[in-house]
């Protein structure tokens, strides 16, 4: 099978997965008891609204209508925000991307660095200290670490703002260099919360991957023929250990999404996680479905991207990529 056919098959499968996820979420929402009207709303108004949004129709009809609208690129109207879901997402998704992107960079740079450093000094003092530290940090709940960081660096020391994404007076919009700096300054604590826990996991993973490669014959051969230790680590061990790291990269997205819901809620970060959380509490069905759509697309795209990168990085996988794709990601 050639690369093009493989890619096409994976793309179709990915779309099918996202489709299945939306269907599942749609059914889950509509099986739930209760209506999206608040309790102190006049029942007559509620009936009117229900009819207006088509919620009195059978679920199959609603589902069909939703799909037709979706095919036209229309995500529907939000019940509680009284505006198109698309607009709400356009406003919030960039914030989540900034947060997740910063956390990802933090996670990978620090995690990879620590993992490689530990593996190079395996079972010596730095490795043992870092090993215990990463084990502990990896186990911290983000929703606990976040308030602690807020308490220490926001409230007590006053180094960073205690919430929000920008200064509401000077920087309602990011339109100057000062405001970019202001955004980054607001980003430090939330991104650190997500990034540091991820980095500890990445470091543990990368250390194990490096050590697994270290026992391979080609590393022993390189050492026997007198290649400098530094070059063995960087060129022989790291290159091969990065292959399993690519898979991990694809799996990082679900963690970031889950973390984003909690971290955004704690830091009052106006991102998609918070939008979705509020939407679930107010039974804002279109927003919930659209958020699930985006979330699952990101997860599936992450996996696909990792597999494609793996195909480029590892020549051994090129021919058999399709047959073993599942096993590799497992």
């Amino acid at each position, binding site marked *: 099978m050639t690369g093009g056919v493989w890619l096409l098959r994976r793309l179709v*499968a990915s779309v099918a*997965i*996202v489709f*299945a*996820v939306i269907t*599942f*979420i749609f059914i*889950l*929402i509509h099986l*739930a*008891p*209760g209506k999206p009207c608040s309790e102190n709303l006049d029942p007559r108004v509620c009936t009117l609204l229900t009819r207006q949004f088509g919620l009195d129709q059978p679920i199959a009809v609603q589902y069909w209508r939703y799909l037709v609208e979706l095919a036209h690129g229309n995500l529907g109207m939000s019940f509680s925000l009284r505006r198109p879901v698309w607009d709400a997402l356009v406003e919030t998704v960039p914030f989540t991307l900034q947060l997740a992107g910063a956390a990802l960079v933090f996670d990978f740079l620090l995690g990879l660095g620590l993992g490689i450093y530990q593996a190079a000094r395996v079972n010596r003092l730095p490795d043992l200290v870092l*090993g*215990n530290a990463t*084990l*502990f940090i*990896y*186990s*911290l*709940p983000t*929703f*606990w*670490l976040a*308030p*602690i960081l*807020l*308490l220490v660096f926001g*409230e007590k020391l006053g180094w960073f703002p205690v919430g929000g994404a920008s200064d509401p007076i000077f920087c309602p919009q990011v339109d100057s260099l000062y405001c970019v700096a202001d955004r980054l300054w607001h980003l430090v604590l939330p991104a650190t919360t997500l990034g540091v826990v991820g980095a500890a996991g990445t470091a543990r993973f990368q250390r194990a991957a490096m050590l*697994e490669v270290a026992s391979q014959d080609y590393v022993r051969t390189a050492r026997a023929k007198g290649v400098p230790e530094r070059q063995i680590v960087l060129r022989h061990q790291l290159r091969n250990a990065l292959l399993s790291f690519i898979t991990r990269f694809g799996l990082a997205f*679900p963690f970031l*999404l*889950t973390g984003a*819901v*909690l971290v955004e*809620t704690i830091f009052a970060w106006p991102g998609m996680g918070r939008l*979705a*959380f509020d939407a*679930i*509490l107010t*039974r804002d069905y279109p927003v*919930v479905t659209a*958020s*699930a759509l985006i*979330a*699952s697309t990101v*997860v*599936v795209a992450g996996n696909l991207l990792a597999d494609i990168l793996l195909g480029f990085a590892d020549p051994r996988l090129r021919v058999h990529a399709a047959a073993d794709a*599942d*096993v590799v*990601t*497992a």
Partner: protein
Amino acid sequence: MTLGNWFALLVALVVAAEVVRALRHRALRQERWRRFFRLRTTSWGLGILTFLVLVALAAPLLAPFDPNRQLDIVHLTNRPPSWTFLLGTDPLSRDVWSRLVYGTRVSLGIGALGALVAVALGTLVGALAGYYRRWIDAVLMRGVDVGLALPRIFVLLMAVALWDGLPFAALVVAIGLTSWFGTSRLVRAEVLSLRQRDFVVAARALGAGSSRVIVRHVLPNAAAPIIVSAALGVGNVLLLEAALSFLGIGVPPPDASWGNMIADGMPSIYTAPWSTFFPGLAISLVVMSLNGAADGVRDALDPREAP
């Protein structure tokens, strides 16, 4: 804290330390189990877990106060840690130590039950898919693909938020039902390689039925990934429950779980950080111990990584 509480705490600590010491002592005689205790974090993890299980069992002996009683809403809110209130009191004047002790039951119980559901399902699906292959494999694994792409936190939030007053057991099952996808992939990969091995082929040739081959020959040899994902699963489920409780939709008040204790303490975190700090520390300790123990199991049961 009364003298009796201190004594019970001391006994629990000593018993936990002794249990681990005895286990370790016995393990040193066997090659495989010696590797289990090779890492110091494994012993510590096992010790902490044993201690917490003892705490959960002996909660009434360790807690000086009723965990749900508001002692004195006027005078005793947000008291700092002292000899009477070992870990202080929370914004509703409840004793944090007593709540932490009783919360151990809830949090560990949910973790263990949820992980049991998840691992059982994951093993079943993984074994069926890996052993029977063909269309069963295709159908099940496509389902797992979808499950892995599900935004799990959304699904759980929806399940809890949309069905008001979901009973406690249903929450545990819901968490378990959304946590088995990774395990099933690991088990499937293991079963795929095992089903080709000589002893499995031999068992089949001797006329053993499929279910017997799977249960008696294949699964025991796939124990490593199953046990490891069970240990990690308990930690994950516990974290998820805590996250849900933190968002205010997990274990309903007034019952204490470590997650809703963090949520209860949040409003006064700047003035009384102890009511948030200690439950979070407890969660971290448990998850850390489980991760450490999982490392040990991986070392002991994975023959490929024998250093």
